[in-house]
């Protein structure tokens, strides 16, 4: 064959396949009180899969929301296919060829596959819609992806994996060349992941650029060409995926000084008070067993969606349990609803303070009294205000809640003080086990220390503390023991003083279903 022509073709092809299609330079973005992105730069080339990595809160999603026009940046430049966009709206982004495949899928469940794919840009005849044409078009794109879905099927009847394929087909049908996939495999089985990877490779071959966000580091080796790593809203590094070892990636993701100021108190470990045996509740809580001891804080580490919150909900009786036993002081508890758990002395400070933890439109007094009304009411159900006041004053004094008056609305307090009110509700009941789910989320550093002291305080009183947190430094700094969860299972138990973040992260990404390589299968 003509050698010159061949090299010419290769050059042309590589030109088409390797040009920079997205360039984001020195992007800054602040939300009230937080600098979400600090001088971040990012590049995507055609025909590549760019893995965007970072811990929770590193700014990956914010960056991608800027690229898709959902957020506007404070400063910085943004080029898509070489064209500068000063002001990018979701619609402009779509027209420029950017599509996001969301983690939580955004579809009309009642409509059919074809109807969803053509929503907002239906094909119309003179009088009515051209359904047959739309179905044919939809089928064309679905066939291109090699997925066996009828365009007539109702989307709500399809499994999540198929819905995801429809989102991808929809993106292709609007001619998207830049696909952002946010945790696309989190709800898929290994077989489905395999199919997804095949499609990603196919899209790559067609010259699409793909941004791939995932916590499952091990699956990256099957598809990622390059990586960009972010941490705390900053750009850290980028490069070819093959140039990094897994340890280097983790090092770059975690990065920060491990020892921060965490006021740990040492305390004599007492007897075993609480035991969970083979707890099962849905897909996210599978065969969970652990013990808690008096005077001990046990940290629960893991990535978002590892099943930790679900575990606390199942224990507390919010979600139904399928099987398993919960034992307090040697006695087996039957917990079917939160009140069972509260009466037994196992209490929960839930993850979303404003949604699940407090009645934000009620006063501090009313919030503190709410779970204790059975104690402070007389037989006729009338609240005895003297006892109510006593209970409030005690909680406020014990936890050093700072507030002008017990009658102020609880949402006027600072995050740290709100968290104290959440805990204060339980103190009047002589609780034995206190479960904290992400107690420091969204509060500033000073208030965090107050929460740590609060947990230490409980620990010194001989209360067993279960401390769920996605921030590894605080788990390592405050907890005595660390239990790591991944994908609904406990994947390891570590001594907090002797472990490293890398060790935790490895356990936190120890997914059960190994990815079948798409290269060798059919």
């Amino acid at each position: 064959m003509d050698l010159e022509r061949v090299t010419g073709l290769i050059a042309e092809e590589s030109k088409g396949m390797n040009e920079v299609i997205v360039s984001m330079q020195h992007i800054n973005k602040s939300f009230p009180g937080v600098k979400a992105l600090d001088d971040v730069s990012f590049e995507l080339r055609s025909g590549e899969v760019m893995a965007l990595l970072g811990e929770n809160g590193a700014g990956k999603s914010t960056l991608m929301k800027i690229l898709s026009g959902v957020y506007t940046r404070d400063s910085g430049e943004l080029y898509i296919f070489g064209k500068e966009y000063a002001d990018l709206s979701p619609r402009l982004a779509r027209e420029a060829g950017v599509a996001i495949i969301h983690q939580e899928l955004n579809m009309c469940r009642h409509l059919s596959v074809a109807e969803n794919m053509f929503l907002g840009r239906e094909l119309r005849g003179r009088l009515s819609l051209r359904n047959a044409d739309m179905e044919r078009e939809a089928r064309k794109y679905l066939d291109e992806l090699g997925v066996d879905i009828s365009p007539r099927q109702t989307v709500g009847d399809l499994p999540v994996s198929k819905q995801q394929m429809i989102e991808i087909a929809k993106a292709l049908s609007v001619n998207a060349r830049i696909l952002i996939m946010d945790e696309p495999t989190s709800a898929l089985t290994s077989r489905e992941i395999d199919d997804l990877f095949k499609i990603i490779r196919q899209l790559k071959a067609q010259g699409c650029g793909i941004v791939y966000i995932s916590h499952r580091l091990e699956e990256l080796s099957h598809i990622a060409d390059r990586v960009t790593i972010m941490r705390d809203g900053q750009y850290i590094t980028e490069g070819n995926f093959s140039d990094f070892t897994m340890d280097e990636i983790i090092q770059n993701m975690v990065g920060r000084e491990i020892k921060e100021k965490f006021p740990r108190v040492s305390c004599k470990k007492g007897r075993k008070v609480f035991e969970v045996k083979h707890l099962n509740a849905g897909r996210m809580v599978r065969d969970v067993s652990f013990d808690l001891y008096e005077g001990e804080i046990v940290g629960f580490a893991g990535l978002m969606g590892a099943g930790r919150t679900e575990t606390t909900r199942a224990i507390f009786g919010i979600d139904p349990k399928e099987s398993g036993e919960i034992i307090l002081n040697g006695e087996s508890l039957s917990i079917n609803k939160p009140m069972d758990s509260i009466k037994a002395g196992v209490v929960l400070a839930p993850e979303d303070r404003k949604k699940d933890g407090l009645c934000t439109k009620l006063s501090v007094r009313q919030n503190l009294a709410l779970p204790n009304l059975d104690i402070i009411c007389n037989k006729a159900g009338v609240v005895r205000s003297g006892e109510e006041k006593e209970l409030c004053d005690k909680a406020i004094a014990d936890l050093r809640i700072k507030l002008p008056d017990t009658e102020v609305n609880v949402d006027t307090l600072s995050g740290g003080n709100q968290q104290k009110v959440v805990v204060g509700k339980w103190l009047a009941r002589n609780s034995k086990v206190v479960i904290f789910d992400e107690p420091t989320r969204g509060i500033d550093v000073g208030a965090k220390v107050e929460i740590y002291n609060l947990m230490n305080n409980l620990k010194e009183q001989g209360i067993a503390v279960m401390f769920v947190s996605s921030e590894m430094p605080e788990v390592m700094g405050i907890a005595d023991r660390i239990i790591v969860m991944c994908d609904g299972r406990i994947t390891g138990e570590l001594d907090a003083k002797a472990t490293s973040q890398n060790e935790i992260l490895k356990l936190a990404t120890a997914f059960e279903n190994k990815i079948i390589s798409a290269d060798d299968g059919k």
Partner: protein
Amino acid sequence: MTGDKRGVFTPAGRCEMNNRKGIKRILAIRGMGAAITAFAGLIVIYVAFGILNPKVFSGQNILNLLRSMSKYLLIGIGQSYVMITGNIDLSIGSVVGMSAMLTATLMTLGVPPLVAMLISLCCGLMIGVINGFLVGKFRLPPFIATLGTMFVARGIGYMVNGNRNTDNIGIKLGKEVGDRFQDFFYYGKTAGIYNTFWIALVIFIALFFLLSKTRTGRHIYAIGSNVDAARLSGVDVVATTIKTYLVSAFCSVVVGFILCAQAGMGNMEAGNTYEMYAVAAGVIGGVSPLGGSGLLLGTFAGAAVWQTLENGLNMVGAQVGIQRIVIGVIVVFAVLADAVLRTGNGLKKSK
């Protein structure tokens, strides 16, 4: 590597789709199951009453039935449009009353019927636009927004004739004009069936087409199913919401004409609580008050069920109290059955 697999199942799938016609294809339409169930229920109820009192089967009774169900059909269509977007319209009954009072008052003042109707229509549609803006644009809870316009429209209906029912509509226009209006909307027949039914049927077919075959219709379902997804797909949520309330107002205004023609005058309480009858007609026919699903065919069946019950219970001599109770129970059961089916037999499956 992957390319050669394309289109493996295409030819077979396509053939199968094109050949699949007739009953199977109709059954595949979403919401058809509920509509057919409602029609089946209708037949059972009708036959049951017929057995109790054979007069139910008489030609005249069928004609009466068709005529009186037309009112419920029209308001049912309006409410169904709104309910499919996941909203509700409580102003229906008041717009009916306002329309009846306005039309009648204007005619007693000597305004020609066509002009009077046009003015009423404009006023009614105004209420629809206001509802649509409050709900679509300003995102008020539809219950509150249309509760407000419900009182306003009823108030206007009271005021137009100075807080009194009107005189006979022919008082100034002459008996002949008045009779013609009454015949056109209520007493006259075309091809052996009362005009009222023909009017309702024409509107039904037009709005059925709009909902099931056009882009607007598609957007109405999309908004009720997932308003955010619809917005992100480029659907104009505000305009579509306004359209549904306009349809609802239009249907209500026409029912106002019918009631005016039936009485030959304007009654201040015309259309009272019709908005609830409209909800019932839609819900019995399988329109989900939560939005996203339902067919107007179901609403047709629902309106017929409602009227057959009223008519049948009357014919067998049941007192009004019993009628209300039976109707109430049927509405709740229709929705309960839907809720239980939707969650897949909710009670049994939770292990």
